[in-house]
């Protein structure tokens, strides 16, 4: 095996290893093709191109409705943990913004702090309501009747799962509060004489990152909803 082909094989193997569960089969398909490409350089080009699969992060596809209850449990567990984590930042920053509001003398600084307080209040309220809803579901989950319902009626469970996935559309409320938070901090820092441009740039990048994550999460959930719809259609 030449050095170039060896490199192609190594890249393909890494792609298989690092591919997300939903793309594993595709990564393996790409890897197998390397052995059938005559030219070493073409094989290397193929392997390099296959790294594109790594950008696609998706969960393992649902093969049947029987897999839905486990996926539902996973989704609810994750949402409960995330709701606690997402509460931390606004709870910590809300009082800080409030403090800045009373301390700062410039109008811009005050406006920024007020926007920050508003963002924190929205985020805390939304996440507390969301957490309350999830805890209610959690309490129902412990009851036997709910477990029967989830495991015996997979169609009903699939509809419930879909409903939970669709709730991701409502996350914009939380993320808009994040934007308030960022805007508040940016305005507050801008109002200072010694403008910290690095912090501002960092905040802007953070906003872009949040928006990117939001769109990726939404895309993944839409994909999952389509999978469930297809499985439900098959069942009917």
């Amino acid at each position: 095996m030449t050095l170039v082909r060896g490199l192609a094989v190594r890249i393909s193997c890494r792609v298989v290893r690092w591919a997300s569960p939903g793309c594993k089969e595709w990564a393996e398909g790409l890897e197998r093709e390397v052995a059938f490409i005559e030219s070493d350089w073409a094989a290397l080009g193929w392997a390099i191109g296959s790294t594109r699969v790594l950008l696609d992060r998706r969960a393992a596809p649902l093969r049947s409705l029987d897999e839905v209850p486990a996926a539902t449990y996973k989704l609810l567990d994750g949402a409960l943990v995330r709701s606690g984590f997402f509460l931390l930042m606004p709870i910590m920053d809300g009082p800080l913004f409030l403090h800045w509001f009373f301390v700062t003398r410039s109008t811009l600084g005050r406006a920024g702090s007020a926007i920050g307080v508003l963002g924190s209040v929205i985020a805390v309220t939304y996440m507390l309501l969301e957490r309350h809803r999830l805890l209610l579901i959690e309490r129902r989950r412990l009851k036997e009747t709910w477990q029967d319902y989830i495991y015996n009626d997979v169609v009903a469970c699939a509809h419930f799962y879909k409903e939970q996935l669709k709730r991701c559309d409502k996350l914009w409320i939380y993320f808009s509060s994040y934007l308030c938070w960022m805007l508040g901090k940016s305005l507050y820092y801008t109002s200072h004489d010694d403008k910290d441009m690095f912090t501002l740039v960092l905040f802007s990048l953070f906003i872009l990152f949040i928006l990117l994550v939001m769109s990726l999460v939404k895309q993944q959930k839409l994909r999952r909803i389509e999978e469930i719809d297809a499985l439900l259609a098959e069942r009917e």
Partner: protein
Amino acid sequence: MSMKMRRSPQTAQVLAEFLSDEQQWRYGYDISRNTGLKSGTLYPILMRLAEHRMLKTSWETAETGRPPRHMYKLTKDGLRYARELVSESTAQPVGDPAYEGVGL
């Protein structure tokens, strides 16, 4: 809430390639060679087609000493969509000549 299939010229190219022999299972590298698309362009298209249940995948039964290959074939829905898209893309010109309308 539904995600739509992107109608790109590359997708039309891949579908046209499948239509050239509808019943045949195809290998990724062969499609890439015939369409001139790189693996990084081809596979996202195949993945999207499979996601929309327009493409079925299968693993080749392994021959001795050779790794099994991943194979692809259009489903009934895929064939219908392919015919529609390919006829659309052949009916529409790709782009007007740059000098059109310019008095030379």
